[in-house]
């Protein structure tokens, strides 16, 4: 088993406010990892540090090599990030946005070549966004936008896909669509996926490995059944839930009722 990411003792602080303390974790190539945790537990910061966008204290190795050895250009061919927020102030078409994922593959002055166009085309096809290609990004709905962002990430032909709450603003159907797409990318293409997630039930359903962050530390790391226990949830989220198994007997399901508090 080769490791895609290996990090040791990652810490990060905004001047006086510490966000992450001593995080050590490794992700194997082809793994699918969900990162859970309450708001402000450091999920987004962790993703940024892992991908080298944010500097932090500690050690990160990609395929055994220190992250500092990579330039931005080569990092962008290893990692693709689907950010939580994607505000675009300029009128770009979907095709233009997706082609931006190819920036590291051609010079800053040149036009995109045939290969770039083919890859962009295939990524849009895969994310069911090809029919949007000539529309403006700011005209799209939340679900469509999210698919375009994933298409751009795929156009980078990354080894590791990082997503920051990919289903945050989506309705149930689009949430499921996105997760099914991730599952497919993982099993068919062997893409390593690390996603910060909000919905614990969906996380348990789609991600074989979950990590719960609490106040900048790893609280639990393991399979959904190991991680999502009534005790852990109460410790981390400070609410009481009831956990049952679904029909397969493996995937935990959370039930939240206000009266469980007492």
């Amino acid at each position, binding site marked *: 088993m080769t490791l895609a990411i290996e990090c040791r003792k990652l810490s990060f602080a905004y001047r006086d406010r510490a966000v992450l303390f001593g995080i050590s974790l490794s992700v194997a190539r082809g793994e699918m990892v969900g990162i859970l945790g309450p708001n402000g537990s450091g999920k987004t910061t962790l993703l940024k540090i892992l991908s080298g966008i944010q500097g932090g204290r500690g050690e990160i190795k990609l395929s055994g090599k220190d992250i500092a050895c990579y330039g931005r250009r080569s990092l962008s061919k290893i990692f693709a990030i689907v*950010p939580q927020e994607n505000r675009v102030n300029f009128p*770009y078409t979907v095709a233009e946005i997706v082609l931006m994922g190819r920036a590291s593959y051609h010079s800053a002055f040149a036009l995109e070549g045939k290969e770039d166009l083919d890859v962009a085309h295939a990524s849009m096809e895969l994310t069911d966004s090809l029919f949007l290609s000539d529309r403006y990004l700011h005209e799209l709905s939340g679900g469509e936008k999210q698919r375009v962002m994933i298409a751009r990430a795929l156009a980078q032909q990354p080894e590791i896909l990082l997503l920051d709450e990919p289903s945050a603003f989506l309705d149930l159907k689009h949430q499921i669509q996105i997760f099914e797409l991730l599952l497919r990318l993982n099993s068919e293409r062997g893409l390593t996926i690390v996603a910060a997630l909000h919905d614990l039930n969906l996380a348990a359903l789609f991600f074989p490995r979950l990590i719960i962050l609490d106040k900048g530390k790893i609280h639990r790391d393991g399979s959904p059944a190991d991680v999502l226990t009534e005790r852990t949830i109460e410790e981390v989220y400070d609410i009481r839930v009831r956990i049952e198994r679904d029909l397969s007997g493996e995937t935990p399901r959370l039930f939240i009722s206000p009266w469980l508090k007492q």
Partner: protein
Amino acid sequence: MKVLDRRKMIWVNGVLLALLALSVVGCTLFGPVHVDLANVLNNLFSANPDAEILFRARLPRVLLGVAIGGGMAACGVVLQALLGNPLACPQMLGVSGGASLGGILGLIFFPYWLVPIGGGVFGEVSWVPLAAFLGALMSMVLVYRFSLFHGRLHPYHLLLSGVIFNSFIASVIMFLNSIVDFYQAQGLLFWLMGSLSTRAYMTVAFIWAYIICGFLWLWAKGVSLNLITLGEETAMQLGVETKALQRQIFVASSLMIGAMVSVSGMIGFVGLMIPHVMRLMVGSDHRLLLPASFLAGGIFLCWADTVARVLLAPAELPVGIITAFFGGPFFLFLLYREGRRKLAL
């Protein structure tokens, strides 16, 4: 899937280049004094007043207008990209103020600091553009430092501190203007108001050199400029060395703004309006947007200056009045339309 291809690049730039050439010829022929073209062409090599007006007075002025219009528009495009804000312009970043202050200090302390070219045969080149460039660069760096938190550039702060810095600089300039002697103050005021009044070919050539260098430098960053409009972090993760890019944008645009301010002061609205219009017409891809805006800015200022020359002939209006007169209402219209479109979503 429609994407930017070579055909569109050549087509758009070709049409604009042709329009620019026509404008240069047209604006040169157009003026308060009628020029007999036949007379000029028949006696090209002998002294005659018509040729004198055409080639000594009008043509250098028109060429200067093209350079400055193009430079303003190109700077507008890149500063808007840098700030991720389509309503940014050189005036807002404190760059123009810094350039003016630099130029003024140059004028006060080194008034005779002229470099004769070819023993003075080709005229003299002033150090003022260089001083203005340094002023522009220094103010940009300063404003930048004040907008950097946790290693990230915050466009909102950049915009705000730029505006504040510009008014601060304005007061410094007023102060300097009141302590120098009367003769110097007159010179400073004249310089500050700026105009496209006729200059020697050598000056025009130097301004062109500054502007072309800056422009080509920025144009070569086309795709990176596209990415930086999406925000610093997104650009980073798509492979842009953002800090290096920001620095290059600062230096290149300061170079251009310094050169422009040193001859013509800040001519408003070109840097705001032209990029906006061109974005609507040719799209937001900077590989095309930048050259198209440069050419369109050249065309626009060329005609605006012609209007300024002939409207109240023989008196002359500052060209800034013309650009603001057309630019202001137009800009309000754009703003209104954009607001309506956003609210309709």
